[in-house]
């Protein structure tokens, strides 16, 4: 809990500090990305390829969406992104297809799988940065970094600000409420849960709930059914189709939460990673979990 509070405080602090900066021309500077590489971004980029759904959303949020010339097949939000050319997968991307879009900035997901692509793009003299936006703290950090790189520092600051305030506000409102113990279902075979390493777990905290698998450090750990029964969650979160299946399945009904029909629908496919919508999503989650306290 303290770690999350620290992240949120940092968020607010970062925006305050950024506000105190002297206003200068848009910074074309060196950026140190999540691979630990330092990249020089000469001028504000006008042809951006973003190979990660979360960074794509962030770019639109800070007003740089119009400069996108490439995205992955999984980028769906906002709707306008469908007009941007689909360059394939975000992991081990097709470097040739990316180069064919003649970008002056490429944003990769900082996974080991993409080291090779980063190297090749830089060898082709295309400024490439790799970021991992997995936790709420990453959202603030990367949004501000992207803002500096694209020259949209003000918009980035506003975005981070707004989301930070929403999250902080929601946390305050839920602090005094009883926290239900929640199991967030991810996948059936193998049985996967949202673990402590996922920003969804952070969102649960903000929304005033306890993730029964918060103690596991992975974002989507594999668990056994029996272990789940042992942890005895109060509420299960799942998609609508999964909920229907669970309520009818005798195995799932060994869970008290399923027997009591406390299976709530919250579609995780909407929230791929902590984008600018993470604030609104946290509020939605809090409303779902505490309908009385958050009545509209």
């Amino acid at each position, binding site marked *: 809990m303290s770690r999350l509070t620290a992240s949120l405080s940092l968020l607010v602090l970062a925006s305050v500090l950024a506000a105190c900066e002297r206003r200068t021309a848009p910074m074309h500077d060196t950026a140190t990305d999540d691979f630990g590489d330092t990249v020089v971004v000469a001028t504000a980029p006008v042809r951006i390829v973003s190979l990660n759904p979360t960074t794509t959303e962030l770019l639109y949020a800070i007003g740089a969406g119009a400069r996108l010339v490439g995205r992955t097949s999984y980028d769906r939000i906002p709707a306008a992104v469908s007009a941007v050319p689909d360059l394939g997968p975000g992991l081990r991307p097709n470097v040739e297809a990316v180069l064919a879009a003649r970008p002056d900035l490429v944003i990769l997901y900082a996974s080991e799988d993409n080291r090779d692509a980063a190297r090749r793009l830089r060898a082709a003299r295309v400024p490439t940065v790799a970021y991992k936006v997995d936790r709420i703290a990453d959202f603030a950090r990367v949004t501000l970094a992207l803002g500096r790189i694209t020259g949209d520092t003000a918009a980035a600051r506003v975005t981070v600000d707004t989301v930070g305030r929403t999250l902080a506000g929601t946390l305050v409102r839920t602090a005094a409420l009883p926290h239900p113990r929640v199991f967030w279902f991810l996948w059936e075979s193998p049985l996967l849960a949202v673990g402590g390493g996922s920003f969804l777990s952070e969102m649960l905290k903000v929304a005033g709930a306890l993730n029964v698998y918060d103690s596991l450090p992975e974002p989507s750990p594999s668990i056994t059914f029996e272990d789940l029964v042992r942890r005895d969650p109060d509420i299960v979160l799942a998609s609508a189709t999964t909920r229907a299946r669970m309520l009818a399945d005798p195995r799932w009904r*060994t869970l008290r939460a399923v027997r009591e029909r406390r299976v709530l629908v919250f579609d995780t496919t909407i929230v791929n990673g902590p984008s600018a919508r993470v604030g609104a999503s946290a509020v939605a989650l809090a409303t779902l979990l505490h309908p009385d306290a958050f009545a509209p």
Partner: protein
Amino acid sequence: MTNARWLLIVLALVTAIVAGVTAGTLPLTPSEVLHGLLGNAAPMHIAVVRELRLPRVLLAALVGAGLGAAGAALQGATRNVLAEPYLLGVSGGAAMGAVIAVALGARGPLVPLAGFAGALGAVALTLLVARAAGGRGDARIVLMAGVVVGAFANAAIMVALAGADASVVRGALWWMMGSAADASWMAVRGLALYVAVGIAILLVLARAIDVLALGEDTAAGMGVDVARVTLGVYVAGALLTAGTVAAAGLVGFVGLLVPHLVRMTGARTHRSIISGAALAGAALVVVADLMARVAHPPAELPLGAITALLGVPFFLAHLRRLT
């Protein structure tokens, strides 16, 4: 096989089942387990024992029985102690069916059904290819046809997974590594009937397999319809295996290893080898599933990984025996 050895195998199976139901992530004393089974315990205990552990242990036992019996019969009929139930392209076909289903978005019971269909399709294709090559009665041609079909299936799996989403790949891989985690009473009932019929057919053919094991020409001279008996063993074995694959994915090495162990205890006729292998296979898979559940909590290891580990000492021992 002597009565003492039968007793030993049956005892091993019973012990394994008891251990499987007693142990698990939720710590329960044997008395709590018993009460859970009988129905006079806390609802959570009853649920865990009756809905989670018992069907799972029984499913594992049935999978082991099917694979053990199929492996024993196939080793006898092909006169090859390295034969195993996933011959004839069964594993490739099953995996292909399941992977394609997962890639197309299927979830739940559709995936095992697709695996089952894939397994049967592969066997049918293998026999057709063998017939086209002119040698349905020749074991080597049929086995080779199985290799061809298996190779095709593997290629198809790779293509299906190449462009697929990470979750699809994970789901497909999980299925291919085998697991009894999805056990339900419905699955147990279905598989029980299936395995019973399959093993019964193999036991009926057992004596013919004894004769067939002497050599195809010799068996022909002793009145065995070599082509028909071999085909019967292949089909019954493949059906049994396809059923276990639908229930628990790919669980390797059981069908290969268990008949050897049974023969080592002195079983000579295929009637005892096949029945012994069914019982011993059941015990083995129940134990492997138990290990899968408790080795690395709260995560679950894939069943096929545990049984694959068993393959290592087996092949080492076989190697030593050859030299």
